């Protein structure tokens, strides 16, 4: 039997396949589609301090091989997540989950992280720093190694849970940001978040998305994500979750060979709700074809 297990900061996952934040809700809908306990883990929708309705609609645009979203971090707020969603999840998901945390100020990240400390269900906190910093004129925390490190250090101080900083691809050097986060105490890195993208409705001569610009993801971005995982894996020692355009078992293998310890599947869940199950079923076959006995052995071997 093929060994698909991987270990992320001491957390052993049965396999490296993890639905990405924002594409799996809290798992409640998916648990009716298939037994989600087959997953390595899952990462739930990004949570902020206050409840947020998010951006105006349309929030979705289609692209060749992908989609643009502009949800604007709609979520019920960290209190409701801790008091309602986490207990709900406990009823149908028996493994540790990954909590994705967003924020518009350093203190918001800290607040949300502290709120999660008491939940044994939360195995990893993923910190989504691709949000505008309202205290610095709206510059994105993820665009500058300094602000990225600032958030990392602040969150590090308030939790003993493993923290993964989720990086943005919309930067000149993702390895600079990655190294700054590592130095500031990150246990791991998640990359990548969405690329900035847009589409125009040629009949209306205006952007499809109400907010004009949104986050582009799906199969189309895989080569961009892969090169960032590859470069970052060479630049840091902490583990990486590879994210971006993953849709097949083959993509999982490429991501791991590039240096990812686990792999998240995002937009593909929305078009094919069974994709994670399909990947988990396909992986052992592909491993056999490639003579891979332990999946963990291939992490970074293309470096």
């Amino acid at each position, binding site marked *: 039997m093929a060994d698909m297990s991987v270990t992320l900061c001491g957390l052993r996952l049965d396999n490296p396949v993890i639905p990405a934040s924002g594409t799996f809700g809290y798992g409640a809908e998916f648990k009716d589609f298939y037994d989600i306990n087959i997953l390595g883990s899952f990462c739930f929708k990004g949570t902020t301090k206050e409840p947020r309705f998010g951006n105006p*609609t349309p929030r979705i645009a289609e692209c060749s091989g992908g989609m643009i979203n502009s949800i604007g971090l709609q979520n019920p707020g960290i209190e409701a997540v801790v008091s309602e969603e986490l207990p709900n999840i406990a009823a149908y998901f028996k493994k540790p989950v990954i909590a994705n945390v967003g924020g518009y100020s350093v203190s918001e990240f800290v607040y949300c992280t502290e709120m999660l400390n008491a939940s044994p269900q939360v195995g990893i906190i993923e910190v989504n720093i691709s949000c505008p910093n309202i205290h610095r004129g709206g510059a994105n925390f993820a665009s500058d190694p300094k602000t990225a490190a600032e958030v990392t250090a602040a969150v590090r101080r308030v939790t003993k849970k493993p923290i993964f900083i989720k990086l943005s691809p919309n930067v000149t050097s993702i390895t600079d940001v990655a190294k700054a986060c590592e130095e500031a105490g990150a246990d791991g890195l998640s990359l990548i978040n969405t690329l900035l993208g847009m589409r125009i409705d040629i009949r209306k001569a205006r952007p499809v998305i109400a907010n004009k610009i949104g986050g582009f993801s799906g199969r189309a971005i895989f080569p961009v994500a892969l090169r960032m995982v590859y470069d970052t894996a060479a630049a840091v020692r902490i583990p990486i979750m590879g994210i971006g355009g993953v849709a097949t078992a083959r993509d999982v293998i490429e991501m791991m060979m590039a240096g990812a310890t686990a792999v998240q599947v995002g937009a593909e869940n929305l078009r094919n709700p069974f994709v994670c199950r399909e990947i988990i079923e396909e992986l052992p076959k592909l491993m056999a074809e490639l003579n891979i006995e332990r999946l963990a052995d291939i992490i970074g071997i293309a470096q």
Partner: protein
Amino acid sequence: MNQVIFDIITNEKIAKDVYKLVLYGDTSGITAPGQFVNIALDGFFLRRPLSVCDWDLSLLTLIYKTVGDGTKALSEMKRGSLDILTGLGNGFDTELCGANPLLIGGGAGVPPMYGLCKRLREMGAAPTVVIGFNGAEDVFYYEEFEKLGALTAVGTADGSFGIRGFVTDVIRALDLSYSGYCACGPEPMLKAVAEELPHIKGQLSFEERMACGFGVCMGCSCKTKYGSKRICKDGPVLKSDEVVW
């Protein structure tokens, strides 16, 4: 929600840019009229949501207008199979309609009214149907509604078929009283209908750009008087008294 592979039985033009698609497969996921299905199309990343027009144990009828590349590609598929997620959304609550409900459909919003009308007739109700189009060449399903035994009135914006004007003009011309109403069509039409019938309990079916169609992405959120709802999961049908216009 079920994922089902359907076989195409027929896919024919029934009006200007409008096609009727009849599919063979497992329809057990569909539980109410006004629900929708989400269709995967080769070469397109997102599925295309279409309302259930009619269904029985193994046949599913959809009616769609070709508006962009996806629906155009669909209209060219004359045989083969389609990967479809079925039974999405809440659908219309037939229990809330009463004995003599009014059903209003505008353009591409007409199809779900057919399945609804059929169920209501089976339940013994006497629905009145008002459907609106731009012109005579756009009209479809007028006779089908009549065959169900529903009083059916058609309005066209240019007056080339039925009564000249919008569905609200037709409603005014009929001047009947109703136990409730159900409507599907462009948002300005839904708003006009709700304003026209302020004292009647209504159910309105909304459209929004969707990614998943089954409630996880928050792409289709809509503010209501009772908080945020997902058009794909908590809708597409909202009650008239919860809608924030």
